[in-house]
């Protein structure tokens, strides 16, 4: 019986291995091993992964991308296991920075640690690579002002509010619409109607990453507020679901849509004229820059890294005039393959630095 178990297990492991038996390198000079850890599984992070892997390929370091599907406890397991593996550097987007200081510092004690996307200022992270979401939110507000110059009522749709970046993004949007001064620490409770001189924010609906809920939120807002002028989707998947709700309700074009992030359907919506515009962060740069900075830190070359520890990856506005160029570029970047050790050296694109 034990033998049977052994055989079955062997077969399983072999099948899991699935023709990818490249294993590890030929044991020349040790290659730096870096990890890029996200805060969840999402298309946004697939783009980030492409950036991280591309950087790994160009710099000749081994890059592993890990996306926790099980929230904060799984992210903790992943970080512990990365310590176990003895990786040289970790770039992580902490899910709950305030409460994760202990595990982040544990990682920082054994490897070079930087944060990306969402910061953990209390931890011993060396650098933070990200977008100022408050500024990005204000940019989103500009889009609303452009599409609704006369003002009107709008509704905000967002995945969840507990993340620092989503709070700031939403606050930036509201502050811009109400022409308030810059103050990222301001906080308007999501339940209340926020009335400015021209614009009224009817509410903020969250969906906890549940796509069906997100769509139902959009549908319900349409039936509840017949005078709704604009819907703003602040997480990548919100705008496409808003579009679907509008299409099924026969209201495409009547209600304006302003988006965030670069989902394919959002970009197509801009081309078709159903979405006015979107604010894009640059997940590709999060990935690329994370690996580049970790590599610089490991090589002791800190000359062009900022004292403040904050490396800004600015957001950009995408409207009908620049959407096609942006999308082409994005597709090209997404075509970047695989981990460094599994890929042939790149031809052409930049000189191979290959320190390993």
């Amino acid at each position, binding site marked *: *019986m034990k033998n049977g*178990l052994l055989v*079955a297990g062997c077969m399983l492991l072999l099948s899991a*291995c699935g023709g990818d038996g490249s294993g590890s390198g030929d044991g020349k000079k040790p290659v730096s091993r870096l990890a890029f850890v996200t805060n969840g599984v999402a298309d946004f992070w697939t783009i980030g992964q492409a950036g991280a892997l591309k950087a790994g390929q160009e710099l000749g370091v081994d890059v592993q991308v890990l996306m926790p599907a*099980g*929230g904060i406890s799984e992210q903790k397991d992943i970080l512990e296991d990365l310590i176990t593996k003895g990786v040289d550097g970790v770039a992580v987007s902490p899910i709950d920075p305030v*409460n994760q200081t202990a595990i982040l510092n544990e990682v920082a004690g054994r490897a070079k640690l930087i944060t990306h996307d969402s910061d953990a200022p209390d931890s011993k992270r060396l650098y933070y690579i990200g977008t100022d979401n408050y500024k990005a939110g204000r940019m989103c507000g500009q889009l609303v002002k452009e599409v609704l110059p006369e003002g009107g009522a709008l509704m905000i749709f967002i995945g969840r509010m507990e993340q620092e970046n989503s709070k700031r993004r939403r606050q930036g949007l509201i502050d811009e619409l109400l022409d308030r001064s810059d103050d990222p620490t301001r906080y308007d409770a999501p339940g209340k109607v926020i009335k400015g001189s021209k614009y009224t924010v009817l509410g903020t609906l969250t969906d906890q990453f549940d796509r069906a809920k997100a769509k139902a939120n959009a549908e319900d807002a349409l039936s509840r507020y017949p005078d709704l002028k604009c819907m703003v989707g602040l997480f990548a998947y919100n705008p496409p679901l808003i579009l679907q709700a509008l299409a099924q309700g026969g209201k495409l074009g009547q209600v304006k849509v302003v988006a965030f992030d670069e989902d394919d359907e959002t970009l197509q919506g801009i081309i078709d004229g159903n979405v006015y515009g979107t604010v894009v962060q640059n997940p590709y740069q999060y990935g690329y820059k994370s690996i580049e900075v970790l590599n610089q830190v490991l090589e002791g070359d800190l000359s062009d890294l900022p004292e403040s520890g904050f490396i800004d990856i600015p957001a950009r506005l995408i409207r009908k005039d620049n959407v096609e160029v942006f999308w082409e570029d994005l597709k090209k970047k997404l075509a970047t393959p695989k981990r460094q050790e599994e890929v042939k050296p790149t031809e052409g694109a930049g000189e191979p630095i290959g320190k390993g």
Partner: protein
Amino acid sequence: MKGINKILGIGGLLLFVWLATWVFSDLLTEHQWSFLTAYNQENLLKRIALFGIIGIGVAFVIITGGIDLSIGSVICLVGVGFPWLLMEKDWPLALALPTVLLVAAGIGLIHGLLITKLKLQPFVVTLCGLLIYRGVSRGFTGDQTQGFQNSFQGLKVLATGKIPLTASFGLPMPVVFLLVVALASAFFLNQTVYGRHLKALGNNEEAARFSGIHTDRMIISAYVICSSLAGLGGLLFVLDVNSAQPVDFGNFYELYAIAAAVLGGCSLRGGEGTILGVIIGTAVMRVLNNSINLIDWISKNIELAVIGSVILAGVIVDELAKRMIAKRRSKMDKE
């Protein structure tokens, strides 16, 4: 005898998975050893203990022929409720701790009463529980993450502390909880009338009732034990992680617990199961989980597929072995 065969089988599977992980993550790479480090083995033991506690809980219910699908949501309720009471509501620890544990036990009591007195099916009752406690947790927290931040360092030792055994290796505190729970449960199941009654009722509830066993009382206590241990698990989980998000904390954990119990020899038809088996079953799943993070060529996104396949293979091999033994025995009987 049957029990011992089971334990040997699942123990063999654990040994195999453990060795395979060691070979693939340490021996076949040029990096320094990682799987066998004290640090990793401590992490593994801690995770096995946390999941083992909830696995033992569900084993009680499964032995009665029932099921509890609400474990993950109870973990969430306790996991977010405990820091919420302490940090947001400023309750004293001496009040908050018994409150959350009593709530967990009360949930089990309600499940048991609905199942025995109203004759509702366990699947339905606990499925509704899964939805209700998750919804309640998200409701009273407003979906906000609940955590301890830098407070209650002493309390966190219960989940993150270690009892140093050698210079580099320490026994994680949750293992102590697991040992206490496991020993008490094993004693209960094997050495007391209660345990024999529980198994008897799992084999045939009607017969057990006619032979004078208070079947309702036994079933209710099984659900109380299950939810209480889920509550204890939730407490330790949140002390370990330091915070919990109402939306996904403990998500799917009931299925991990059930899988570990089944892998460890509990029959979903009731009447069968050993505590040691459940712990080994939990260990198999945690080592697999660890191996996927440590072995480079197993991609993280097929994790569930790997775990599912190994469990399925284990169960199939076990079933085939059982038949082979039965065949051989009947052959011997003929001769």
